[in-house]
């Protein structure tokens, strides 16, 4: 199966291991990733608060590039990219006049033919084959953390259940893990303040880490680079804020699945984490 691939900036920078693990997993599942040619930044985090047209033009160009390359679907592993691309596609579809305006700005046609999918959606398509490929079950209690961007706004994304998503829990169960019931599956980690207000990030992400630990999780599994970096990279601030010493690792779903499918930890980029992601064998 062939699919368009849009890594976005964070997967080439701070979250290289997400890109690495997606690409390591793809061949094992028979998934061929075709890069969107000459892609640009989707504008996430800043464009949409500064300029409405810019916020649409950036993702629109990506859609146009994908269309020109004959792609019908793009996988955007980063939740922010997924959200921006989907929102732009939806806005242009509903407002043809605006769509013509944006086309004039980017000097390219966009018809809206291309569908945007997130990593959980893509993995879900392999839910029949995944169990057969598990060689080293990820036998740990996990807290599946979806964050806010993967499911909201539900009208646009139409993915999973906005208030209580289940897809990642199903996938992790298939990988041999025991997903825990916990409270903050879709709570915001404070991503937008990641650089400017680390104190707020410590508070918001702190609640999430603390609650996952309280509910017995041995690992937090995520599908968004911002969630991962906040819960992982900001751990010293989080622990200082909580007055705790939480060492729970934060893995991308692709890393956790990759491990369970017997892929080498370094190939999955696990060595890049700040909080060591060494999963000690545990009985579930």
């Amino acid at each position, binding site marked *: 199966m062939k699919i368009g691939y849009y890594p976005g900036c964070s997967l080439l920078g701070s979250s290289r291991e997400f890109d690495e693990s997606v690409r390591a997993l793809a061949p094992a599942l028979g998934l061929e990733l075709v890069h969107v040619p000459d892609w640009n930044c989707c504008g996430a985090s800043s464009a949409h608060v500064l300029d409405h047209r810019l916020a649409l033009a950036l993702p629109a160009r990506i859609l146009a590039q994908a269309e020109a390359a004959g792609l019908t679907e793009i996988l955007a592993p980063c939740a922010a990219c997924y959200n921006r691309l989907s929102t732009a596609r939806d806005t242009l579809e509903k407002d043809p006049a605006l769509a013509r305006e944006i086309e004039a700005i980017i000097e390219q046609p966009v018809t809206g033919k291309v569908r945007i999918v997130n990593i959980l959606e893509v993995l879900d398509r392999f839910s029949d084959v995944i169990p057969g490929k598990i060689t080293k079950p990820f036998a740990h209690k996990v807290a599946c953390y979806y964050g806010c961007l993967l499911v909201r706004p539900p009208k646009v994304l139409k993915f999973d259940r906005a*208030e*209580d998503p289940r897809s990642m829990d199903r996938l992790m169960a298939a990988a041999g893990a025991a997903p825990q019931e916990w*409270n903050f599956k879709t709570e915001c980690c404070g991503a937008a303040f990641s650089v400017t207000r680390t104190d707020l990030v410590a508070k918001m992400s702190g609640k999430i880490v603390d*609650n996952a630990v309280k509910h017995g999780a041995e690992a937090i599994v995520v599908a968004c680079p911002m969630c991962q970096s906040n819960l992982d990279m900001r751990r010293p601030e989080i622990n200082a804020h909580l007055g705790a010493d939480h060492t729970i690792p934060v893995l991308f779903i692709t890393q956790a699945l990759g491990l369970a499918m017997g892929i080498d930890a370094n190939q999955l980029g696990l060595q890049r984490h700040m909080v060591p992601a060494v999963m000690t064998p545990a009985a579930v």
Partner: protein
Amino acid sequence: MSRIGVFTCHCGENIGATVDCAKVAECTRNVPGVVHSVDYKYMCSDPGQTMIKEAIKEHNLTGVVVAACSPRMHEPTFRNAVEEAGLNPYLCEMANLREHCSWVHEKVDATTDKAADLIRVMVEKVKHNTPLLPIRVPVTKRALVLGGGIAGIQAALDIANAGHKVVLVEKSPSIGGHMSQLSETFPTLDCSQCILTPRMVEAARHPNITLMTYAELEKLEGFIGNFKATIRKKARQLDEKLCTGCGMCITKCPQKKIPDEFNEGLGKRSAIYVPFPQAVPNKPVIDKDNCTFYKSGKCKVCEKMCPTGAIRFDQQDELVTLDVGAIVLATGFKVMRTDKFPEYGYGKYADVIDGLQFERLASASGPTLGAMKRPSDGKAPETIVFVACSGSRDRAKGVPYCSKICCMYTAKHAMLYKHKMHHGKAYVFYMDIRSGGKDYDEFVRRAIEEDDVKYIRGRVSRIYEEDGQLIVKGADTLLGGEPVEIKADMVVLATAVQAQDGSEELAQKLHVSYDPYHFFAESHPKLKPVETNTAGIYLAGACQAPRDIPETVAQASGAAAKVACLFSRDELTREPVVAVVNRLPAPTFSYCVGCFLCQSACPYQAIEAEEIRGRDGTLIKTLAKVNAGLCQGCGTCVSTCRTKAIDIQGFSNEQIFAELMTL
């Protein structure tokens, strides 16, 4: 020779502003067959009608065309006027100059020309009109009431007290509906059972009322005054005549752990059960899905225990057909359940309950005998949070409407709680307080001011459990949008009122319409609130929209009055716009060749067979015949008939073709 009068109306400015009515009247005079043509400002006014009546006499008219507005409103007006002048009313037709011409076109010459054309067409039709007589049908003076909640009970009692027979059909084993589950009622806080039970008993004892509980409508045929209803009486597995209601069977039934519907799952019942102590009738039913005998073939303990030998394991459902003249629909509502709220804990937290469950907890006849105990561990909740508008006024939950009763019952719940737990803390999250009604706002103020219930204007975003307590996260939008977090022991969601399950199928069986949310639709939102679009079927209570008890009872009495009004006549008259099979002299008798294609096409089963026999009794021909009582005049048969033997009176092929050929 036709002598037709044409009366063109200006409808004030409505027609007059775009159509030159004087010119229309003028050129209509030249249409063959027209002997009189005038225009006037308001034809429907008294002078306008008098003008028509006098012209009929003066010019000896054989037909009338009123060129005015849509026939929907004023066709009866003008037909009455024509009849008063001694002409058959069906010789009067309307040309719709307003909706079909003046309202949709500009003021140009072509508009006036079109108006004249519309009139010519109608003149041609009237030339082919024949006098018709209204159809008379008898009225069966017995009413069917579907649903035995307070709406159905009230309607049945009122109809019965007007001297007519009523059959009250209730789906569940007892009448009473939701009102029987309520603890106390707003705005007076009187005990629900105490005011309801006497009504239930009265309905059961009334000589004019036949109760059919544990029964449902299977099929409905017929029309106003003449319905034929088939009712399925579900098997109670009991001979009701022998059962004395002693309850011996219930005490010994080994299956005792079945979640109890009456207590909204907060209590348990046995497999043979009476839903609640005051149930009417007070006779048990066996729940076959949970009975040991039906599951494993062994047990029959109840049969051994029963002193009168009333248990009947082999009893089957029974179908009963009833002739009734009118139907009152009173099938009530349901509430949205807590499992529709993933953000509030998905029904996974035992202490997040809905309003009906709270009623049972607060009720003296409930599972806790009225003591405030939370479902999870029986602890008395020190802090309780009520969330109004749970699902209501929320497009994301598919309920954009206001459920209307929850503001009031939430205030009641908070008060009942405070009356039982003086030192406890009660919070209410709300969007607006909608307490329009007699003594209603005063009631809410009492909760806030006297009972110290803390009202917080804002929505709850999430509820989760932490250390055995429920954390309720919300916002106080009155005081600067501050986030609020309350640690509660119990949360009550005032979940949305929704249409009863199966409303759609029931509406289809009865041919009544329903709104997008499956509440039954009234015929007119203001002027016909208890009628449906199907003549002879009326609405009462919460099956039409969210309603409290006072409104329900008022509407039920309204529906009953409509039924009594219908039953005050021995015969009904109907418009004669029905199909007829043509008849000719012998030996042809009719173009009908007896193929009965029309019979399979008719959606109302109105086509019957008629045999033509010779004097010696030999069968000469079998013809189709239309039952004028059942025919709805849809015309499906006309388009199916290959020999053109069937026609709609007043809209015959000949008439329609005459209209078209004029253009």
